[in-house]
C-alpha cells in the first residue's frame, strides 16, 4: 500500500541552543466530574508555528494570541470521546500554560498528542495522569513515531 506524505512549509528560526519539549498534566477530578488539563509549551516553539499564518505574532502581547494558541492546542491534543474547552493561557518567559477543561462521566481511554510534533523535528511531549491530584504513574511520552497512546486510570 502506498502512503501519502504531506509536506509542511515550516522553518524553525536559527537557535544554537534549542530544545523542543512540552508537558501536559491531566487531572481527573472525580468529585467535580471534570478533566483539568494544563498543557505547558515552549513559548518560542508555539510562537514560531503560529507565525506561519500570523506573521510576527508575539504570544505575550497580541490579543489574538490566546485564541490562536487555544485553537492550536485543541486541534493537536485529542482525547478520545472528550471535547475539552479552552479556559485561556498564562505566558511566562519560557513557557506558556494552556488551561483546558471538560465535563466527563469517565476519563478518556486514549490520547492523540500531536502538539508541535508535525512542525518541529525532535519534539517530545510528556503527559502526566492524575486522579484527584494524585499522580498515577510515570510520564507517558509522545514523539514523532508515537503520537497515540492508551491512558490507564
Amino acid at each position, binding site marked *: 500500500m502506498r*502512503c501519502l*506524505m*504531506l*509536506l*509542511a*512549509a*515550516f*522553518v*524553525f*528560526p*536559527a*537557535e*544554537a*541552543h*534549542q*530544545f523542543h*519539549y512540552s*508537558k501536559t498534566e491531566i*487531572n481527573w477530578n472525580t468529585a467535580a466530574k471534570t478533566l*483539568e488539563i*494544563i498543557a*505547558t509549551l515552549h*513559548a518560542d516553539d508555539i510562537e514560531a508555528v503560529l507565525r506561519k499564518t500570523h506573521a*510576527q505574532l*508575539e*504570544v*505575550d*502581547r497580541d490579543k489574538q494570541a490566546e485564541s490562536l494558541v487555544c485553537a492550536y492546542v485543541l486541534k493537536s491534543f485529542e482525547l478520545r470521546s472528550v471535547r475539552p474547552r479552552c*479556559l*485561556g493561557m*498564562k*505566558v*511566562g*518567559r*519560557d513557557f506558556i*500554560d494552556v*488551561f483546558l477543561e471538560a465535563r466527563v462521566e469517565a476519563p478518556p481511554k486514549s490520547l492523540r498528542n*500531536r502538539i508541535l*510534533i*508535525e*512542525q*518541529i*523535528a525532535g519534539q*517530545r511531549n*510528556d503527559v*502526566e495522569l492524575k486522579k484527584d*491530584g494524585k499522580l498515577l504513574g*510515570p*510520564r507517558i*511520552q509522545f514523539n*514523532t*513515531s508515537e*503520537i497515540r497512546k492508551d491512558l490507564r486510570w
Partner: protein
Amino acid sequence: MIRRLLLGAILLSLDMAAQNKRSPIDKFRQLEEILPTPNEYRTASGAPGHKYWQQRADYDIDVELDDVNQQIIGRASINYHNNSPDALTYLWLQLDQNIWEPHSDTTLTETAPDWKKFPIGSFRRYMDDVFQGGYHIGPVKDAAGNELHKHINRTMMRVDLPAPLAPGKSFVFTVNWDYKINNSKRISGRTGAEFFPKDGNWIYEIAQWFPRMAAYNDVNGWQHKQFLGTGEFTLEFGDYKVRITAPNDHIVASTGVLQNPEQVLTAVQRQRLTTARTAKKPVMIVTGAEATANEKSKPAGKKTWIFHAENVRDFAFASSRKFAWDAQGHDAGGRIVMAMSYYPKEGNPLWERYSTHAIIHTLNIYSRYTFQYPYPIAISVNGPVGGMEYPMICFNGPRPKDDKTYSARTKYALISVVIHEVGHNYFPMIVNSDERQWTWLDEGINSFLQFLAESEWEGNYPSRRGEPAKIVEYMKGDSHDPIMTNSETIIDLGGNAYHKTATALNILRETVLGRERFDFAFKEYARRWMFKRPMPADLFRTMEDASGTDLDWFWRGWFYTNENVDISIDEVKLYSVDTQNPDVEKLITKKEKETEPVTLSAQRNKPLRKRVEDYPELIDFYNKYDEFTVLPSEKKAFEIWVKQFEEDERKLFDPSMNFYSVSLRNIGGLVMPVILAVEFNDGTREELRVAAEIWRRNNLQVEKIIATRKEIKSITLDPHLETADIDVSNNYWPRQAIKSKFQIFKEDRDKVNPMRELKDKEQPSGQN
C-alpha cells in the same frame, strides 16, 4: 497528645548496632570510586598539578568572504606546539563544516519525522535540493612545501607527520580550503548568512570556518569525538593573525584587535572610536542612518581587515554593509576594554538601547565572581544566529517587530542572551572546558552566572533559570538524564545542562555552603583554571577543597542521578520530660484529664439523678479518694530513682520543656538540608536550618527534635522555596490545603484585574 519522655542514665542503645548502614544505600559515600585518580597533572585538591601541560596552536590566516556566491576561501599556516610529554606521530584537526556534507553523520543519523507532515527543511535533505555544504580541503603541506598525507574521517582530519613530533617541539604546516556558507533561513546553526530581500543584502556570522586543531590532553588523548551538531567545541589556546578580505563597503566585527584602522575605517569612524574609549555611554561609530545609506551601495572593490588576537581558543567574525556600530570603553581594573555592538536597522530600537549596556554589565558582574576580563574587546552582533559565543565576539538573535515595537519577552530575551553569550568568554573561552564531552561544565556554570548578573540588572528581573522553584517541573518524574551525561546524548539539553546545573549551583551557594564560602571556592576554581582545561572532577574537588566542606553527597545526588527533592513532614509528636516526681507528674496528669473532652453520653448522663445521692451509705473510701494524691510509697520510689543521677543532671528535669519530634521522610531520593519555619502559639516564629548530614545514617526517614518552652502552632518545610522540592503539599504540619495550578488560574481568571485593564490602555511596551 503529649508523650512522656523517660530519661535514662544509660544512653547507649544496642539498636544502633543492629542497623545495616548499607540499607538504605549510603548517599554520603565518597566519590573516589567514580572520580579519576589524582596525578601530577591534576591534583586531589582540584588544581592543576605541578606537571600540568596543554598544547598550543598559533594561526596565521588569510580568508576571503565571497559576498556574491556566499562562500569562504581560506589559507592557514598553523604552528602546533607539542607541550605534552608524548611524541606525536600525527595531528588531528576539526572540520566542523562537514556536518553539512550531504552524507554527514548528522544527516544520516536523523530519525524519521511524522510522515503525514514532513518538515520541508528535513525533506530537502532527501531531494536534489540538498545543501552542498562541507569543506573542500586542499593539499596540506609542511613549511618547506612538501605535501603531507592526510585522512579525513567525517568531521575530523588526521595529518600524518614526516617524523614524530617530540615533546617541546613545534611543527608548522599549511592548509587551504573553501566551503559554501549555509543560508540560515534554510539551515540554521551556530554560523551562517542571512538574506534581507527588501534591500538585497546579507549579514554573515562566520564561525567554525577554518580547520581547527583538535585538543590533545592528559585525560582523553586526542579529543576527536565526532561533531554531530550538539556537543560544541574542545580547543587549544593560541595567537591568531587573521586577514579578512571582504567587499569594501562592509563593516567587519571580529575576535581580536584591528591592526589597520587607517586602511579600513574613515577618519570620522576612527575619531568616534577614540571618543568612545572614555565615553560614559555608547557612541555610534557607524550610525543607523549611515548603515541604512550603506545598504544601497555597491562595492567598488575589496578591503582587507587585519586582526590580531592573543591567547584565544577560537576565532570568529561577522561582516555586512548593513551594520550600525556602537562602542563604549569599559574600565577593567585600569585597562580599557572596548564593548561594541553591531546590528542592522532591523535590530533597533532594541539593540542601540540594550546591547552594549548588557556587555559592560556582564563584564562587571562576571569579573567580580571570577577574574578580571583579560581581553581588550567584547562584541555582540545581531544576525541570523540565535545565540552563540566565541572569544571576544558573540552572535545574538532577538529583534523587535517590523513596526519597531517589541514585547517584554523579546526585550528580556535580548538582554539575557547578550549576558549569556558575552559571559561565555569566561566559561569556556578562558576556563577552557571540554564542551564536546560536558556541555554542563560551561553552559551550566554560565547560566548560573547569568542568573547572578540578571539579578543586578533590575529588581524582579524575569530570569528563566536559577530559582529552585523553576526547575521543579523538570525534576518531576524520572525521565530526565543525570547532569553527567555526554553532550551529544542528552535529551533535553536546555533543561539539563543549562537549567538543572545552574539551579544546583545556586542551591549550593544559597542553601548548602552560603554565599561567602561558595563565592570564595568558585572564584578559586575560576582562578586555578583560567587559560587551562578543567574536567568535572576538578570543579568538584576545588569546591570542596576551598570551602572546607565534603560535598560528595551533593555531586552524587545532583550530578550523577536523576533523583529529585521531595521531603515530607509525616508526623509531629510532642514529648515532655517524665520527671518521675509524683508531686509534679500527678499534677500534670490531673490537668490533662481535666482538659479531656467529655463524651456525648457523659454529657447527657450528667443531669440524671444518681443512686448514691439517694443512698449516701453507698459512698466509701474510693468515692472520696483523689486519685492524684501523692502516696508515700511513690515519693519513696522517686527518691530511689533520682539517686542514679548526678546533681547537675537533676537540674535538667524541667517539666515545662516541650520536645517536638518532627518525622521527615525522603520521598524524592535526593538528600538535602532541612529548613523548618516554626510558628509558635504566642505568635513568634523561628527558623531552623539543618545540614544535609541529618540524613547520613538513614536517608529515607529521620526524626528531628525541636526543644522549646513554647507551644508550636505550625511547621513549614522549605519556607523560602530554596530546595526545588517537587511536592510542597507535604511540607506543612498541620497539613494545609494547597490550591492546584488549575484552581489558581480559574480563580484569577474570574477576578477583575485592574492592572490588566489599565495595561491594555497603555502603549505597547517599547513603542517609541
